[in-house]
């Protein structure tokens, strides 16, 4: 009988606490509705409520640990500069957006699908996140972070995803956009370079790995190379964790290709450079920005001489006075070093595109709080047209590509534009294309 009484008391307490927890969520931000004709209570995906004394929460999903950390950390640094520049100057003091401070919530996406899953879940669960700048790597976004965030109506805009699959009409998530280039352009420019006067190649072979980034580049290269009159003699795929590529290279060497294009990541790329030097010494080797790293030059040594690498050509930005006169000095002052990678300007532009969109669609509830409708924010970003960013003119297409004209440069090893690059590190060949020019 005693037990019965304790049990009843406990059960009552449990029920009361569950009810209390459920009711607690409803408090705060009750304003809603208001001007702009958007009813936050009924519109799809709702609104983000920013209280009168609260900061606007900007999310970031970037790789900040591991072998590719420089790629993500560089962009996080750029985002902090974007917060700084809200007040119009780089004074290491953050500005405000619509009288609210902006805070950055960063999640590590580990440059992998698993990392994209964790980061996406963490950010999607936070109802105060307005938009997310990310991911760093296409593998973390494709079907993972873009879906997790898109299902909650949270806009995901990337400064470094380049895989064509992310903006393919069949696969594109409506809440995904990017200011980085689409690799269909990079692959086309590499193919054009291979066929052109510098190399004059007639035959080519390719090696891809299992990542969407590599497969996008190889696909674009092959399509444009063949359309330009070249012949593809072999197309192999390897595992990025393999070490022995000698049989694959020997097999491709049979047909004596003029060019071997293998846009894979640093670990496997270094090994192929070394092994190809012995197995196919007469073939010109071309890699892309996934391999463009000081680690490659260090570990491949002499074998990296004469290897071509394609990458966004930042020297195009050097003529932009804001970039070289204000942005880079501010970066050096705030972080004590030169930029770590090549996508900082794209991330900076992504953040500013989002800020402009927030200014357009945020509803002032009159008491100092804001309501930002998610669908309207997304529509405003996708309506961005002719915006003058650091990387160029930004006009977003319905499929999510916002970089209109893309300049890609070809760099000859050891003159790569990274730490450890020797000699002349300017691009030996550059071209600018837009999506309409390529296959």
């Amino acid at each position, binding site marked *: 009988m005693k037990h019965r009484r304790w049990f009843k008391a406990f059960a009552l307490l449990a029920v009361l606490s569950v009810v209390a927890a459920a009711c607690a969520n409803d408090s705060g931000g009750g304003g809603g509705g208001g001007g702009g004709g958007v009813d936050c209570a009924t519109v799809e995906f709702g609104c983000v409520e920013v209280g009168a004394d609260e900061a606007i929460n900007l999310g970031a999903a970037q790789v900040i640990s591991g072998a590719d950390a420089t790629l993500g950390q560089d962009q996080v640094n750029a985002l902090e500069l974007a917060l700084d520049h809200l007040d119009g100057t780089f004074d290491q003091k953050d500005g405000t957006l619509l009288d609210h401070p902006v805070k950055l919530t960063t999640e590590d996406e580990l440059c992998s699908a698993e990392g994209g899953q964790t980061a996406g879940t963490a950010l999607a669960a936070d109802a105060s996140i307005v938009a997310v700048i990310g991911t760093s790597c296409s593998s973390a976004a494709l079907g993972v972070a873009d879906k997790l965030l898109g299902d909650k109506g949270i806009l995901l805009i990337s400064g470094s995803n380049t895989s064509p699959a992310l903006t393919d009409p069949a696969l594109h998530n409506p809440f995904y956009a990017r200011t980085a280039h689409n690799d269909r352009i990079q692959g086309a420019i590499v193919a054009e370079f291979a066929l052109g006067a510098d190399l004059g190649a007639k035959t080519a072979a390719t090696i891809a790995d299992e990542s969407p980034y590599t497969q996008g580049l190889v696909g674009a290269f092959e399509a444009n190379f063949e359309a330009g009159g070249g012949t593809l003699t072999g197309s*192999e795929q390897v595992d990025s*964790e393999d070490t*022995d590529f000698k*049989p694959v290279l020997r*097999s491709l060497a*049979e047909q004596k290709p003029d060019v071997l294009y293998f846009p894979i990541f640093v*670990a496997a790329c270094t090994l192929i450079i070394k092994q190809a030097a012995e197995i196919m010494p007469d073939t010109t080797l071309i890699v892309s920005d996934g391999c463009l790293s000081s*680690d490659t030059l260090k*570990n491949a040594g002499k074998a990296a001489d004469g290897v071509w690498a394609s990458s966004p050509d930042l020297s195009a930005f050097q003529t932009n006075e804001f970039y070289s006169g204000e942005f880079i000095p501010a970066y050096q002052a705030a972080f004590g070093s030169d930029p770590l990678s090549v996508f900082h300007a794209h991330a900076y532009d992504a953040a500013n595109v989002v800020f402009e969109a927030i200014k357009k669609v945020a509803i002032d509830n009159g008491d100092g709080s804001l309501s930002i409708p998610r669908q309207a924010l997304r529509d405003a970003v996708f309506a961005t047209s002719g915006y003058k960013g650091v990387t160029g003119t930004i006009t977003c297409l319905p499929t999510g590509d916002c970089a209109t004209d893309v300049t890609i440069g070809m760099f000859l090893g050891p003159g790569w534009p990274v730490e450890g690059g020797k000699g002349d590190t300017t691009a030996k060949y550059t071209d600018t294309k837009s999506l309409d020019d390529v296959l």
Partner: protein
Amino acid sequence: MAGTEAPRVEAVRLSRFEQLPWRRIILIILGIVVIGVVGVGATRTLTLGKAEGGYSAGAWRDFVVQGTAQGAIYAMIALGYSLVYGILRMINFAHGEVFMAGSFGSFFFADAYEKSGFLDRDPILALAIVTAVAIGVSVGTAVLLERLAYRPLRNAPRLVPLITAIGASLFLQNTFRGFFGPQPYGYPKPVVLAGNITVLGVPVQRIQLLVLVVAVICMTVLQWFVSTTTTGRSMRAVAQDREIASLMGINVDRVIVTTFVIGGVLAGIAGVLYSLTFEQVQFTMGFKPGIAAFTAAVLGGIGSIGGAALGGFVIGLLQAVGPPLILTGFGIPSVFSLKDAFVFLVLVLVLVFRPGGLLGTGEAEKV
């Protein structure tokens, strides 16, 4: 005796259908299909013209050499798996990390010697010291593993040490990652090992020749050790029956430690050879060779030394020669992307026909 008659037992008569030896029939059909596929694929590949993707004699020769050199390294690591399985009836999944530890340990010496020029001035002495360091680190790791991770679980159910081994493998990988970072380090190669050398008219890379020679010497020494010396015979005795061996006066603990030491020595040498071949060390480098070597040990007959050696060479050759020989004939565009699938398919087929592995007894042994 009234009443009770013994119940008549009727012989159970199987119908003609049930009498057929179904297992053998299925095996025979499967065998014919496999031989058919291999035969058709190989003939078609070999009759392909150059323009259609056929390979020249030089290419086949190179594939065989590459496969054998890679297989030699797998064989040396596989010996570690087989020896430990023979003695303890457990798979030491952390053996790949023992191999990696030796490599990493020797990297610092090799790097220092290269920077000072010692590596090229006196390559034999330099490499000898580097190998000694690698052996030391590998043996140290193996002995620590045995003492801390496996000895307390000597009498636990078979699944428990298996899981511990996987845990130890992850622990070692991440310890090295924590200490040395996730990036690959370039491993130096002495000038004397660069380039090719022609042996019996076959151009071979010097490092590949070194790998083959060292591997064969190690395996011969091991075979002599296990068959003639007292310790070797104690190892075989403990492998046969642990209890009786201890009753016969053999110090079982010491024998088990010796087994791990020998496995560590071989892994350390394999580590140096692997690093010289690929000129790179990284904390993940033990994972794939570990799996390949484990597959090799199972393929050749787990627990058997000859089996591990044979399995290593077979896996190496399958990886290099298999996809181009058999899959090109079927017009598959990127044959090397199926390399791993091909190797594991062969493993499955071998185990179907010979459950104990190539050099096993032909009967299944339950793990």
